[in-house]
């Protein structure tokens, strides 16, 4: 699929054609009473501003700080994530998978773009694009190199292809030097990519 | 594309890597000289000469070579026999491999995604696109040209052609019938 973030290089008339078509369809559907523009605005605001990776970062931070929560999360993630108030569309069935010193997890949807919206928001373009979707299952180490991540040669890599409505959340390893940190501060270390498996969490010095 | 190819030709000629006259000769050869008429002659001979027919199916390259056809994309030729029970089709899913020596250059449809993707999975559906329907119990063999072997189909001889000369029979043999996406013409088609 075309990489969207190069869209300013595309023919501008092609994009404004799309803009016009979308606007036209919205007009038609509104005039027919099938959609309510205020509902559309609220949908956009929810996913543009309210639901995002900070949710998942809080889940991971709690798992780092609270062993009992970690156990609940790994056993049955949907209700554990629900304890923080995150739930719903594209997160009805979440499985949390933990990284260890010998196992690194990566999540992909080769067939489309399945992603755990309630904890990570909407997926980035690269996640939905052909390079990631085609290579993550065949050459995960190569993909990690594209992200600047190198794992020890002996680390096993487990790639989860989200072919059903199950949504996967990676629980990265807690960085060293964070003893006694509050959950809020720990959440600052948890990057979105570390919860997909294409990155590692920040370390304390990255925040300084 | 016109500008780009012309520019590249100029550069390569100026560097002395290619000779203009050789380029012209190549184009003339494949545009006018080598074409399906070669293959039609092979088929017409197979229809009339049982010894040639036997040789053709045992050693396509040699038999076809005896008629003066061979060389590039014709070094390893295999002839496939259509019978009332078996219909052969040739494809190159991976690119456009085609028996140039007997059929000339391949048509656009042969090199395009619809034919390359569907022939191995749904040969009857592809034949329908060509207006060809085979009896339900005819076995269809699809040959994917993945190596340097090149395949040509020998269609069945149409009825009502007893005693016809090779030159007359040649007129019945269509290019598509030698790929397997058609049948040879019948005598009434010639009138």
């Amino acid at each position: 699929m075309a990489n969207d973030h190069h869209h300013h290089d595309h023919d501008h008339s092609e994009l404004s054609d799309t803009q016009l078509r979308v606007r036209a369809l919205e007009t038609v559907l509104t005039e027919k009473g099938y959609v309510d523009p205020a509902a559309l605005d609220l949908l956009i605001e929810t996913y543009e501003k309210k639901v995002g990776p900070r949710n998942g970062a809080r889940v991971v931070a709690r798992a780092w700080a609270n062993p009992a929560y970690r156990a609940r999360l790994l056993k049955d993630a949907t209700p554990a994530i629900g304890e923080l108030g995150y739930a719903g569309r594209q997160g009805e069935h979440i499985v949390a998978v933990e990284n260890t010193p010998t196992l690194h997890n990566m999540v992909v949807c080769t067939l489309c773009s399945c992603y755990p919206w309630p904890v990570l928001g909407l997926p980035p373009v690269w996640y939905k694009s052909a390079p990631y979707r085609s290579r993550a299952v065949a050459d995960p180490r190569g993909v990690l190199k594209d992200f600047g991540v190198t794992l020890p040669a002996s680390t096993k890599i487990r790639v989860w292809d989200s072919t059903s409505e199950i949504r996967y959340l990676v629980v990265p390893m807690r960085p060293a030097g964070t003893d006694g940190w509050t959950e809020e501060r720990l959440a600052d270390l948890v990057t979105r990519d570390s919860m997909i498996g294409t990155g590692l969490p920040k370390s304390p010095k990255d925040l300084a | 594309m016109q500008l780009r190819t012309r520019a590249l030709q100029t550069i390569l000629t100026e560097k002395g890597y290619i000779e203009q006259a050789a380029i012209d000769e190549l184009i003339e050869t494949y545009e006018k000289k080598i074409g399906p008429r070669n293959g039609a002659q092979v088929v017409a001979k197979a229809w009339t000469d049982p010894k040639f027919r036997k040789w053709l199916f045992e050693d396509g390259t040699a038999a076809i070579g005896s008629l003066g056809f061979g060389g590039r994309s014709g070094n390893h030729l295999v002839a496939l026999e259509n019978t009332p029970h078996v219909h052969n089709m040739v494809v190159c899913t991976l690119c456009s491999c085609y028996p140039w020596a007997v059929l000339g250059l391949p048509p656009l449809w042969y090199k395009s995604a619809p034919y390359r993707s569907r022939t191995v999975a749904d040969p009857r559906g592809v034949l329908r696109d060509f207006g060809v329907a085979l009896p339900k119990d005819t076995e269809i063999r699809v040959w994917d040209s993945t190596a340097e072997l090149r395949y040509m189909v020998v269609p069945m001889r149409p009825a009502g052609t007893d005693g016809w000369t090779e030159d007359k029979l040649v007129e019945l043999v269509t290019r598509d019938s030698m790929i397997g996406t058609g049948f040879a013409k019948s005598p009434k088609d010639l009138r």
Partner: protein
Amino acid sequence: MNGPQDLGGMDGFGPVEPEPNEPVFHDDWEKRAFALTLAMGMPGGWNIDQSRFARENRSPAEYWSMSYYQIWFAALERMLKERALITDDEVVAGHSLHKPKPVPRVLSPGDVLKVLHRGGPTERPTNTKPAFKPGNAVRAKNINPPTHTRLPRYVRGHVGTVDRVIGFHVFPDSNATGAGENPQWLYTVRFEGRELWGPDGDPTSQVSVDAWESYLTPAD
């Protein structure tokens, strides 16, 4: 379908190129296309499996040259036309020209957060028992439906191990054709990298898919 969406293992697309500080939406029309798609789910009466098929069911040349939301929008237009909710002349005019069809429900602003929060769970009750259990060796079938399936080509015919029995879930292959939910037992099946990609594959990698029971046969 063995279509352009089934990308696992394909070569030629180049490196992954993350965009730094990527915005959620790259254009105003993307926001509208996104919201229209979600909002039309209820009145449109289609299920998520039908919408996925509407997206993937196009020529590879089209699919690979369109951006993500362009595909969403094209699929939305197609589903609306298939159900006669809009017509071509209305798309051209940019206005409703014909009487609207009655629809089951329209999403109101007050319902948005509730509907999002409820989502669309796919687990269904059952008295049946799963055919497989964790540790079983299973082979992914060589099925090639022309319609929607969630069994990618790169695992078909390969042997893996059942990692987990997930539950009894709506079966997309059936649901996408309008033939009903027909739920089945769903499993996570894990494959060794070398099983999938050959002896030169990465010996440290494993790939899993979530596979419905009818995708699998016993391999022990």
